[in-house]
């Protein structure tokens, strides 16, 4: 039940973010899905393993792969799903807590939060890189010959 609530809230958040960046109406639902799925992955992995950085890495990876799959299915740039979905993972909270501990004079907490924020940012970097490292052809299994080539060409765009 808790997961369902998290899913719905994350989806609402992502759709709203997508609206702020003027995503076309037809794609809003898919943006919401990509955000919600990555958040659920993050939430579950974080809860089960207690490792926030690993959770972020897994979530970003899934998000990137999912965005690319959607891009092929919906014939749109992967960017639009990726950009809206990433907002659930970006360490905005980490930045705030780091600064909060800095101005509170709590050096130990500041260092630990700051380092964690940095690690999360790195995890996002590698999540995206691993996600894009999967060869384009794998996303085009269902198309054949010339059509597949054309699809791959326009996908590059």
């Amino acid at each position, binding site marked *: 039940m808790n997961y369902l609530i*998290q899913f719905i*809230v*994350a989806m*609402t*958040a992502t759709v*709203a*973010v*997508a*609206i*702020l*960046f*003027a*995503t*076309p109406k037809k*794609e809003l639902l898919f943006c919401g899905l990509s955000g919600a799925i990555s*958040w659920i992955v993050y939430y579950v992995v974080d809860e089960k393993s207690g490792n926030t950085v690993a959770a972020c890495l897994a979530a970003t990876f899934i998000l990137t792969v999912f965005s690319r799959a959607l891009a092929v299915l919906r*014939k*749109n*740039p992967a*960017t*639009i799903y*990726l*950009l809206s979905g*990433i*907002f*659930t993972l*970006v360490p*905005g*909270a980490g*930045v*705030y*807590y*780091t*600064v*909060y501990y*800095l*101005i*509170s004079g709590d050096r130990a907490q500041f260092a630990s939060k700051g380092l964690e924020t940095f690690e999360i*940012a790195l995890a*996002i*970097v590698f999540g*995206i*890189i691993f996600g*894009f490292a999967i060869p384009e052809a794998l996303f085009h299994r269902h198309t054949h010959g010339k059509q597949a080539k*054309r699809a791959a*060409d*326009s996908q*590059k*765009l």
Partner: protein
Amino acid sequence: MAHTKEILTLAVEIADTMLRSGAEIYRVEDSVIHILEAYGLEDFDVYVLSNGIFASANENREDACSMVRHVPMAATQLNRVVALNQLVRDICDHKCTLPEANLRLQKCRDLSPYSRGITIFACGVVCAAFSLMFGGSMLDGLFSFGIGLLEQLFLLACKKYKVSRFLTTVYTSVIISLLCIFSVITRLPIHYDKLVVGAIMPIVPGIVFTTSIRDFYNEDYLSGSIHLIDALLTALCIAVGVSLPILLFRYLGGFWF
């Protein structure tokens, strides 16, 4: 056979609009190359930066021409990126003649973001949802929603009066922080940190950061660095903006932060 200059102008104009609307460097560069090839140009060169475009075609021939564009960073508008992507695809499939393409480019440029009311509401929803996701209570979500509405109003005003991007971020985070402090002063059971974390979400540099990673991945190191510095500075501005009111209230004394 169309003139080299017209083709190059079309390609660069499309690239210009794409870059402005928030497409990543690789896509922009690739689009230009595809368009030029589709219209039968062979000898050309393109270089795209995070805020500039350089292109030349047929340099050693009579109809040589080259173009340089300065593209200031603007608000991300994904509907333009989608529409332009479709346009470039149609051009590559030779479904679109030059005059048609120009008309469609104009249409893409006229695409506007969602209306003011909707974006204000959406910003409220973003703040509320993120407050809840980071473990806030329903009451936190409600206050966040209100703060989000005011935040977007302020952002729109900054856009109207053309305040610089970094100042906008600092001012907005100061206002967020102040509003959060005022909500805590009501003595309702509100968590200050959950409010702030939710409310800064709409101005967090998520997009620039992602674009920067993708630039590095595609070996556009210069654009990647520019975007990365942009993201870091924005984060710094948020940090400064949020902490100023807290420090002020502490200085005034007797506050429980």
